[in-house]
């Protein structure tokens, strides 16, 4: 049952092959068996899920279908607020935080009939590329338990890859959907900035944050995005534009589609195993009639430096709300108000979060603003212009999602800058606000383990439907997305 895609489960539910209760119970059992090892979930909502599944089965029996995801199990990254269910954001600060409302994404997926099995682990406040920054412990990669699943949506990626749940929500500020999707061999889409509502999604860097779907296939991502996307008046950055139907265009031909290969992505620095996976994917896509041309993205190498100013600056401002007064952790016996603030924040935040707040506070402080934040925003313009020029020639841009396959737990925790360089291929799309998808395109053997390789396709603004279309067509002629860790 757990090897089916969400779309196939839907067909099976419709055909009466199994019930929603049986389906949810099967995944709950898998979570119970495997989560101790993977640490992909920080909490499960078993009782509520089974109640919802029973109700879904009853409704189905009477011909009352809530929506496209009726009775299908999913899980939410623990950054999305869930009414009455603890939402930790991977932090001690919010260890006991029970939101009094649902995020719009949670509300919409629920309205479509999806059943939430629990909340997935993540890097604290979504800051990290390895899921080693969670207050609730590192998540392990199902392909090799000594390796990281990527981050920050590492719990979601590991849960889907291990078939503990068929699909999850994720968020992507600098690659946090696509990078773990690549490391775990699943499909993950970061939509255009503003496409999916950020209401109730705990803020990290507001000019970059975007929620999106993570699943085994592009088709499942399309099913989820159909429900997640759309204008939301409660999010001031939500785009007032109708969503597309991401499912109906999946079957379109990709013949004649032009895809750019950035010279800068295929230079000498790229891991040979990743390059081999990409070259094979290019050949498969050529067989489908896709045309490739070389392009230039001249300022890409400045994206990591610009990002690691913009993101910390915005995080220092967003995380100022955690003051130990209204909600979240408060220190014991505060001597005065300043002591309350300082010790509550010192105890509530982990090391990476504190470092980013400090860097951001510094970059925004008087005398440094022009040199750092303003400079970074100008670099963003240059990176965005590079993309605009490229999209005059091509429909999509293809490259690696990550510079290497999943690395070992503890391998890169010593030096923050080395960790940051993992985001080199994913950050540019965030800085420009463009949609990007990571799709499994190969496997590499390393120390006796089989590790997935991901390719990334970046599209123009609001081109999610065509991105999912090309990814789906690729998955129809390849089987990397069907491989399951041993």
């Amino acid at each position: 049952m757990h090897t089916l895609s969400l779309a196939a489960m839907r067909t099976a539910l419709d055909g009466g092959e199994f019930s929603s209760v049986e389906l949810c119970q099967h995944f709950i059992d898998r979570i119970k068996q495997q989560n101790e090892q993977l640490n992909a979930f920080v909490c499960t909502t078993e009782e509520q899920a089974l109640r919802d599944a029973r109700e879904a089965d009853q409704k189905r029996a009477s011909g009352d279908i809530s929506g496209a995801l009726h009775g299908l199990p999913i899980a939410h990254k623990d950054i999305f607020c869930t009414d009455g269910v603890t939402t930790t954001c991977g932090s001690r600060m919010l260890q006991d935080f029970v939101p009094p409302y649902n995020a719009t994404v949670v509300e919409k997926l629920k309205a479509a009939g999806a059943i939430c099995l629990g909340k997935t682990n993540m890097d604290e406040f979504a800051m990290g590329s390895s899921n080693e920054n969670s207050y609730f412990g590192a998540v392990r990669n199902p392909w090799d338990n000594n390796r990281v699943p990527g981050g920050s949506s590492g719990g979601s990626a590991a849960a889907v890859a291990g078939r503990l749940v068929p699909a999850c929500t994720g968020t992507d500020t600098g690659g946090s959907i696509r990078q773990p999707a690549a490391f775990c061999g699943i499909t993950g889409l970061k939509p255009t900035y503003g496409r999916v509502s950020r209401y109730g999604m705990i803020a990290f860097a507001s000019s970059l944050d975007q929620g999106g779907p993570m699943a085994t296939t592009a088709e499942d991502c399309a099913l989820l995005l159909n429900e997640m996307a759309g204008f939301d008046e409660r999010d001031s950055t939500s785009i007032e534009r109708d969503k597309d139907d991401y499912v109906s265009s999946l079957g379109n031909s990709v013949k004649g589609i032009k895809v750019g290969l950035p010279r800068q992505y295929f230079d000498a620095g790229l891991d040979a195993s990743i390059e081999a996976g990409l070259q094979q994917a290019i050949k498969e896509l050529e067989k489908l009639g896709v045309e490739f041309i070389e392009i230039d993205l001249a300022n890409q190498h400045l994206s990591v430096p610009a990002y690691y100013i913009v993101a910390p600056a915005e995080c220092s401002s967003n995380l100022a709300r955690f003051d130990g007064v209204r909600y979240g952790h408060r220190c014991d016996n505060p001597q005065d108000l300043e002591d309350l603030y300082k010790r509550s924040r010192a105890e509530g935040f982990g090391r990476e979060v504190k470092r980013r707040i400090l860097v951001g506070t510094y970059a925004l402080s008087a005398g440094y603003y022009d040199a750092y934040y303003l400079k970074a925003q100008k670099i963003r313009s240059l990176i965005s212009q590079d993309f605009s020029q490229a999209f005059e020639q091509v429909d999509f841009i293809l490259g690696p999602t990550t510079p290497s396959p999943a690395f070992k737990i503890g391998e890169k925790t010593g030096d923050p800058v080395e960790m940051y360089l993992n985001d080199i291929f994913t950050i540019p799309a965030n800085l420009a606000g463009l949609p990007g998808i990571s799709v499994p395109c190969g496997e590499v053997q390393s120390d006796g383990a089989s590790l997935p390789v991901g390719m990334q396709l970046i599209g123009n603004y609001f081109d999610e439907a065509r991105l999912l279309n090309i990814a789906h067509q690729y998955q129809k002629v390849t089987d990397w997305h069907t491989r399951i860790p041993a």
Partner: protein
Amino acid sequence: MADETDGTVGNDIVEQVAHLARIQIDPDSVANYAAEMSGVLQLAAQMDEVDTSSVEPMAHPTHAVQRLREDVVTETDRRDAFQRIAPSTENGYYLVPPVIE
């Protein structure tokens, strides 16, 4: 703070910034933070290789402008629900240590 961006941060800067950010830093870890912040700022210094004097900073990826809404009440009063999750409240107020002696 001085207007210098040589990319190195001393212990004094860490302490000053930590105060601005209202985060207590253990004295033993100040030097570590200084080294790590310096590393990040040295990474950022790579941006200096490009002349951006004639480049407009990005304000919004898709050039959207702030949307205005009707001046009508949209939210209901949920004070009790919001205060239930606060560390300390009394009579509808959030409690903190005395601010004025």
